[in-house]
């Protein structure tokens, strides 16, 4: 940062109140989450005795009960399976399409791009009835294949847009050199586009995973078998059933929030980068 740029900012003395203000705002975010974690580690009796006080004893009972008896463990695994499968498919399809649209001649490229961009802003609730009927006709309601297909379809437009933009930055000379070497489409894709686009692909993976992991409406409508339920609908029904057992609900909240929080901790770099591109659209 150059001197001149800093001189256009506030004096160091004026920064202290800002810092304290920021700390207060941060506290309003951290405290509720801290409260959830602390509550989830207490018994209901202990919580009711003094919600804000220091717990008499810590316990993992709520987690064990939820995980083993209320199907949260199973739902967690189901969500993991569906999200990972959907994200993998999105990455494969989107990077192929993105590479082609960015670097290769494509019949009707403009038509494809227009289609992808124009469906990007369709709100989810508008599509629930037709998608439901289409999947019903195909016998895919109540089946993960239908849900995954919907996640892939709703995730693809942005994913293609994002990877097209990112892959444009790959120097043409490299691709040309590969072509001269006699590398075909897939070899070029695998040995040049993939390694050079790693950071973009990672960003995309994180964003899409967060999206599918947190999705509610389709997982609610399309999966009804209690053994196949995903995590968010399971949590929603637990929250309704155990309104007066906050420690139990809190444990469920933390189990659900844990995965996104871990991602934010370890992949915040990729998430932040994804947002900049999100702005460009």
């Amino acid at each position, binding site marked *: 940062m150059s001197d001149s740029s800093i001189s256009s900012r506030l004096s160091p003395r004026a920064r202290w109140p800002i810092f304290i203000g*920021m700390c207060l705002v941060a506290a309003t975010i951290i405290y509720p989450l801290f409260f959830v974690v602390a509550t989830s580690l207490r018994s209901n009796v202990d919580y009711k005795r003094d919600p804000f006080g220091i717990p008499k004893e810590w316990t993992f009972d709520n987690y064990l009960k939820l995980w083993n008896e209320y199907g949260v463990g199973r739902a967690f695994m189901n969500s993991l399976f569906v999200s990972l499968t959907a994200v993998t498919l999105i990455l494969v399809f989107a990077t192929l399409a993105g590479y082609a649209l960015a670097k290769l001649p494509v019949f009707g490229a403009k038509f494809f791009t227009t289609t992808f961009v124009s469906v990007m802003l369709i709100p989810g*609730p508008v599509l629930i009835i037709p998608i439901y009927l289409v999947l019903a006709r195909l016998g895919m309601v109540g089946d993960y294949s239908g849900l995954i297909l919907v996640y892939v379809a709703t995730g693809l437009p942005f994913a293609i847009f994002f990877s097209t933009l990112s892959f444009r930055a790959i120097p043409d000379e490299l691709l040309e050199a590969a072509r001269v070497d006699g590398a075909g489409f897939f070899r070029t894709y695998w040995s040049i586009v993939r390694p050079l686009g790693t950071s973009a692909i990672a960003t995309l993976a994180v964003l899409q995973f967060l999206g599918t992991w947190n999705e*509610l409406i389709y997982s609610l409508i399309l999966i009804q078998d209690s053994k196949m339920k995903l995590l968010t609908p399971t949590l929603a029904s637990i929250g309704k059933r155990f309104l007066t057992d906050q420690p139990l609900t809190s444990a469920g909240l933390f189990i659900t929030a844990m995965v996104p929080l871990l*991602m*934010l901790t370890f992949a915040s770099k990729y998430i932040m980068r994804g*947002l900049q591109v999100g*702005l460009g659209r």
Partner: protein
Amino acid sequence: MMRQSKLIGTLAVLPSFIIVAGFMAFPIIFVLFISLTKTNGLTFEWLWFKNYLELFADPIVHEVFLNNFKFVISVPLVIFAALVSAVLLFEQFKGWKFFRVIFFLPSVLSVVVIGLIFKNAFGYYGSVNQFLGLFGNEPKQFFINSNYSIFIIILALVWSGFGYQSLLLLAGLTSINPAVFEAAAIDGAGWWRRLWSITLPNIRRVLGFVFIINFIYTFSSLFGFIFVITAGGPLYETTTIDYLVYLRAFSSSNLGSGAALAVVLYFFIGLLTLWQSRVFKLQMED
């Protein structure tokens, strides 16, 4: 050779196109068709616009549309909170990157998680009532009053949304040419003056974008919050259009009327987008 690579390129796009066309583009056309029929999914009886006429005459639909406009209050609140934190983060004081991540934290959480945190906090035995109790207040049943309920949902929207928006605004701020600030500093313009006459005008485009996505958000994406926090009650006083689409979709053997509501929502959002982009374009041409 050229022709061959053109074929390969097209083939690479095709799988994505088929999925998107089948599960996003086709459903849009299909929902238009469904909305003109009475159907249980098996048999379709052509009705022309009967579903729409009933919809426009339905007092619950009117009420729900008005409810959505109440949630628009959240738009300026989110933007204001985001703007303040963005401008302050832009000062790049010690640890600003850490704060950036913290503010963003609620954005990665599921609406179910956020919704339940707020529902529990404002419940009868929740922490808000416990806290008010410390000052001798009787606990309140917040969720039997729609004004409180809407306030709580708006609070959840602001809490969970401002971090992401402030990052968008921050990106806009960072892209301002530093030379502009230098010139102003040489002219002796104070911090407030610079904020008002340089910083804000320069991020007008980003502000406009943020305004649009928030506005659309309040009409299309409140489902999760409503589902978890109030289930649309008391009565239909916190029901929004997207939630009503869900309620209507499978509650009767006529899917047509739910589809008609979805179509109205779709066109309404389309109009909003067009109108807003026009308004902001005009401003930019000033």
